[in-house]
């Protein structure tokens, strides 16, 4: 198995409902995503993008198949650990449509909340947070509240939060949906840079075809199958 492997999926299946209400969403998905890659995940609405993203994020249980996060097999017809949340906490970063920062925490606390849950020392997590804030050029905002920052600044903080636990993968659910064209391009370029510099795989759901040129690969859900274009 390659050390570059970030996500590996074998024969992954997911369906919802029973009887007349039975719906197959993902059938026999097989793919590997390596570290350093920015992958665009595209599909029409309702095709199963979010379901696939949540299965990769260990938040939705597949019906069958296998999933590896990095080198660790986390699913083989069932979760291989009771603590799927621990996998998310230690190996996965999330970026949402909106920034979804905790509104009652200042920027530095928003960033250090997750390391704190991972029992990382306060000093160490704050140093990491400050390093990331500098990386995203918002070092002077560490004591500001999310409501005091612009939408673009908050989205950068949200990306910084996703990096705080040194994840193996980042799952981004339409991170540019709320941004204008210029800012969207900035964010996607930033994600590409992060993927390379932080050696992390990023799966980004997008509806915006203009963003696809910045991605390394395009993954599409077509007729319930996952294919690379």
């Amino acid at each position: 198995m390659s050390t570059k492997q970030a996500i590996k999926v074998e024969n992954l299946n997911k369906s919802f409902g029973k009887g007349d209400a039975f719906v197959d969403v993902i059938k026999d998905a097989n793919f590997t995503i390596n570290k350093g890659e920015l992958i665009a995940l595209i599909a029409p609405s309702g095709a199963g993008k979010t379901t696939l993203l949540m299965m990769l994020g260990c938040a939705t249980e597949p019906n069958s198949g296998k999933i590896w996060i990095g080198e660790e097999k986390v699913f083989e017809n069932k979760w291989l650990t009771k603590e799927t949340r621990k996998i998310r906490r230690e190996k996965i970063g999330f970026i949402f449509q909106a920034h979804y920062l905790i509104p009652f925490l200042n920027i530095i606390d928003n960033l250090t909340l997750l390391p704190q849950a991972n029992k990382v020392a306060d000093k160490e997590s704050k140093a990491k947070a400050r390093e990331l804030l500098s990386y995203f050029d918002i070092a002077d905002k560490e004591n500001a509240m999310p409501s005091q920052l612009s939408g673009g600044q908050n989205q950068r903080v949200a990306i910084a939060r996703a990096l705080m636990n040194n994840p193996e993968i980042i799952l981004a659910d339409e991170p540019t949906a709320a941004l204008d064209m210029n800012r969207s391009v900035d964010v996607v370029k930033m994600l590409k840079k992060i993927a390379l510099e932080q050696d992390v795989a990023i799966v980004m759901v997008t509806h915006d075809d203009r963003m696809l040129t910045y991605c390394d690969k395009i993954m599409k859900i077509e007729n319930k199958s996952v294919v690379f274009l």
Partner: protein
Amino acid sequence: MIYLAKEDIKHTLGKFIVTAMGVGMLLGIVLIMIGVYRGMIADARVILDDLNVDLWVVQEDTLGPFAEASRIHEDLKYTLKGYQAIDKSEAITFQNIQIPFHEKKLSVMAIGYDIYGSITPINPKRLIAGRTLKNDHYEIVVSDKTDYELGDTIPLGRDIYTVVGITHGTVASGGDPLVYVSLKDAQSLQFTYTNKRIQTDRARGIKSGDAHLVNAIIATVYPSYGVDATAKTLRKWLHKSVYTREQQTDVLTKYVVEKASKQIGLFTVILISVATIIIALIIYTMTLEKMKEISIMKLIGLPNSTIVKMIVEETLLLGVLAFIFGNIFSHLIYTKFPKNVVLETPDAFILFIIIVIASIVASFVGVKKVISADPTAAIGG
């Protein structure tokens, strides 16, 4: 270290404080209710404490004048004095009367006692103006709650009484102010009727009744004789009901104040239950307002314990803050109540414990919501 509860409360401090003040007012009323009960008990004990006697001899098979009608002969006090164990014994009367009060009537309890006797119901410490009774007739000592002043006159029965002394903190178990008159005046008030009534009674052939009746004989026992043993002896030979001070206290608190205390107790339980439900609803609403954040926290991997801790801490803080506001509120208003309200620290402490437990129980609704929150709800608009 990040304290989520502290940061969340800081973010909505005004709203949180106003909410705590609202719940606090409810808890303040709970404290006042308990204070009313304590006040009733304290009021009930005023007469017993001021008299400070060992034995109460009352009409046979009755609980005594505080619970029911009791009439015995005044001269029984001499019989009692004949017993070796008895140090002092005096006759005493209690009757509810109405006195003029700001062009209305005020219900008071009149205590009649022998002003030359060895036991006085007037506690010198409670006398704030004037003196005790010195003449057999037409003098009265009143509680300051009656609003009378020294030298004022009060028409009672067929006579007019002059206020010669004013006491403070003297009330009966029902909260009525106490007034003190001589035993002779008290008997006259009880047994001397109007001229027309006497005329009618005579026409009916009814003779004047015995006016030398009192409601109880009170006595003290020499320390070398046991109070209980003396009471037992007197019961055997006098064919009267005899109560020790503790028994008479029980009569007052268990029989006289019992129903009121049960009522107040029930109100208190209801109010605490309402406060618990309100706290639970507030916490539920506060949790609902944070559901998006909670889903995100769960999705990014925060353990339930971190989020649950935030909810429980917020609930506890709400309960504690409400308790503090409740105490302030109750101490600001308790003097405004017409009846005696006694706020005691142990009661507040017990309420504090109850509120802490109630807050923990109330937090369960928020905790349940947190545990059932779907982390995937964070994804999408």
